[in-house]
C-alpha cells in the first residue's frame, strides 16, 4: 500500500461540493442519501485554504459543484479564491438560482467554464424529472447568458429511461444553446439513482440504439460540438476505470469538509475519511486511510491482477463492487468475467414504471 508521497501520482482535479442544498430533486442525484446540512458547511476562508493546498498538491482544475453551488451566498468569493489559487474554475450548476447578475459577477471573478445540466429536450418532461416547475426555462436562459458573456458552455445530459429516446433532440438543444461540448452521461447507480434504479433503467434495446445514435451524432456534428459519452455500465462488458483509479487523479471535498476519493465513497462502510478542518490536503492525499484503502491493484482478486486490463480499469469501481457483491475488494461485477456478473445482468432487465423518490434534504 503506497503511503510514500514521492511515489504517489498527483491529483489533477478537485470536486468541491460546496453545499448539498439544491432546488431540484433529480432522482439520480450523485449526492449521498444522507445530505450535509447548511449548518455543517465549510466557510469561505476554509475553502480558500483548501484551494491553495490543492494547487500546491498539483490540482489544476476545480469543479465547483453541489447540490447547487449558487445556493451559497459566498459563491462569487469562493470562485475568486479558486482562481486566485491558480486553479481552472468550472461551475457545475442546475441553472436555478443563477441570475444574470450572478453569472456576470462570477465571470468577473474569473470563472473559466460553465456546465449546466438539462433533464430533457421537452420542457414538461424536463421539469418532471427535475421535480421543479420552470427549471427548463431557467436553464435555457442561463445558457444564453453564459454564451453572451463568451464563457465556454458545456451541457450535461443524464440519460435514463424517460429521456433515452430523445438523445438526438437533446444534442440539438445543446447546439441551439451554443454549447461547445455536451456530455451524454448514462445514469450511474449510486446514492439516489440506486434508490430509483428500476424507475430509471433503460432496456438493452434502448441502450444499443442510444450508443448508435451518439456515434452518428458525433460524425454529423464533428467540428461543431464535442460529444463526450459516459457508458451505461450495467449494459457494458467491461467496468469503467472509476475516477481514473482510486486515489490517482482526483479528490472530492464534501460540504462538511470530508475528503473522499470519489463522490460515492461514503457508501462503503468501514472507511476512515479525514476532514480538511483537521488535516492539510496533502497529508490527506498521501496518508488518509480511505485514500490508501484501494490504491494500486494489490488488493484485487487474482482475476483482476492477472488481467491484461488491470492497469486500464483497475478492476472497476469499488463502490459498485460493494453495492452489488457486499465486498469492496471484489472485481466490479459489471465486468463480464466477474463471478457476480449475473447479478448485474439480472438487475439490468428490471424496469418498473413507478414514481421517482425525489432527492430532498
Amino acid at each position: 500500500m503506497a503511503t510514500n508521497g514521492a511515489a504517489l501520482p498527483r491529483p489533477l482535479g478537485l470536486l468541491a461540493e460546496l453545499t448539498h442544498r439544491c432546488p431540484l430533486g433529480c432522482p439520480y442525484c450523485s449526492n449521498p442519501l444522507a445530505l450535509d446540512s447548511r449548518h455543517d458547511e465549510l466557510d469561505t476562508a476554509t475553502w480558500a485554504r483548501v484551494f491553495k493546498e490543492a494547487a500546491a498538491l498539483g490540482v489544476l482544475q476545480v469543479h465547483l459543484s453541489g447540490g447547487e453551488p449558487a445556493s451559497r451566498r459566498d459563491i462569487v468569493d469562493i470562485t475568486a479564491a479558486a482562481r486566485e489559487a491558480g486553479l481552472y474554475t468550472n461551475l457545475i450548476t442546475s441553472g436555478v438560482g443563477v441570475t444574470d447578475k450572478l453569472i456576470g459577477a462570477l465571470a468577473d471573478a474569473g470563472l473559466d467554464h460553465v456546465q449546466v445540466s438539462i433533464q430533457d429536450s421537452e420542457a414538461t418532461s424536463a421539469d418532471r424529472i427535475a421535480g421543479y416547475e420552470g427549471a427548463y426555462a431557467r436553464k435555457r436562459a442561463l445558457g444564453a447568458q453564459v454564451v453572451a458573456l463568451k464563457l465556454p458552455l458545456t451541457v450535461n445530459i443524464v440519460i435514463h429511461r424517460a429521456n433515452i429516446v430523445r438523445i438526438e433532440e437533446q444534442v440539438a438543444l445543446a447546439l441551439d444553446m451554443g454549447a461547445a461540448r455536451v456530455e451524454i452521461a448514462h445514469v450511474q447507480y449510486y446514492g439516489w439513482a440506486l434508490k430509483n434504479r428500476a424507475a430509471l433503467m433503460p432496456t438493452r434495446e434502448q441502450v444499443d440504439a442510444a450508443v448508435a445514435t451518439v456515434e452518428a451524432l458525433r460524425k454529423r456534428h464533428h467540428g461543431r460540438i464535442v460529444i463526450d459519452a459516459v457508458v451505461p455500465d450495467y449494459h457494458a462488458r467491461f467496468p469503467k476505470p472509476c475516477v481514473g483509479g482510486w486515489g490517482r487523479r482526483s479528490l472530492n471535498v464534501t460540504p462538511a469538509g470530508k475528503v473522499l476519493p470519489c463522490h460515492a465513497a461514503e457508501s462503503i462502510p468501514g472507511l476512515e475519511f479525514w476532514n480538511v478542518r483537521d488535516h492539510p490536503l496533502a497529508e490527506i492525499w498521501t496518508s488518509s486511510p480511505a485514500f490508501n484503502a484501494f490504491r494500486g491493484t494489490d488488493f484485487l482478486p487474482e482475476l483482476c491482477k492477472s488481467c491484461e486490463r488491470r492497469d486500464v480499469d483497475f478492476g472497476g469501481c469499488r463502490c459498485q463492487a460493494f453495492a452489488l457483491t457486499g465486498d469492496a475488494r471484489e472485481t466490479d461485477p459489471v465486468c463480464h468475467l466477474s463471478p457476480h456478473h449475473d447479478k448485474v445482468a439480472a438487475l439490468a432487465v428490471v424496469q418498473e414504471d413507478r414514481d421517482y423518490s425525489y432527492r430532498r434534504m
Partner: protein
Amino acid sequence: MTDTASIAPDARPRLPRGVRLAHNEAQGGWVLLAPERVFKADPIAVEIVKRCTGEATFDAIVDDLAKAYNAPRERIATDVGALLRGLVDKRLMEL
C-alpha cells in the same frame, strides 16, 4: 493537417475564453487548461502560446521566435504552424 499554408501570415492567434496557460510547480511546469481537459506544454509550445495574444500576427510571432532562438525562419514557421493548427483543431486556439 500540419501545413503552414493553412495559417494566414496576418492571422492573429489567441487563446479562446476558457482556455488558459498556467504554471503549476507540483505538476512540473506549464499546462494548457481547457474545459475538462489538461495538456502538458513543452518549453517550445509555451514560448509559442505565450506570444498568441490576439495582437501579434503569425508572421510577427515567427519573426520574434526566429530572432529569439537564432534559428532559420522557415523551420520556425513550419513548427509554429503545425502547433497552432493542432491547437485550432482541438478548439484550444482561435485565429
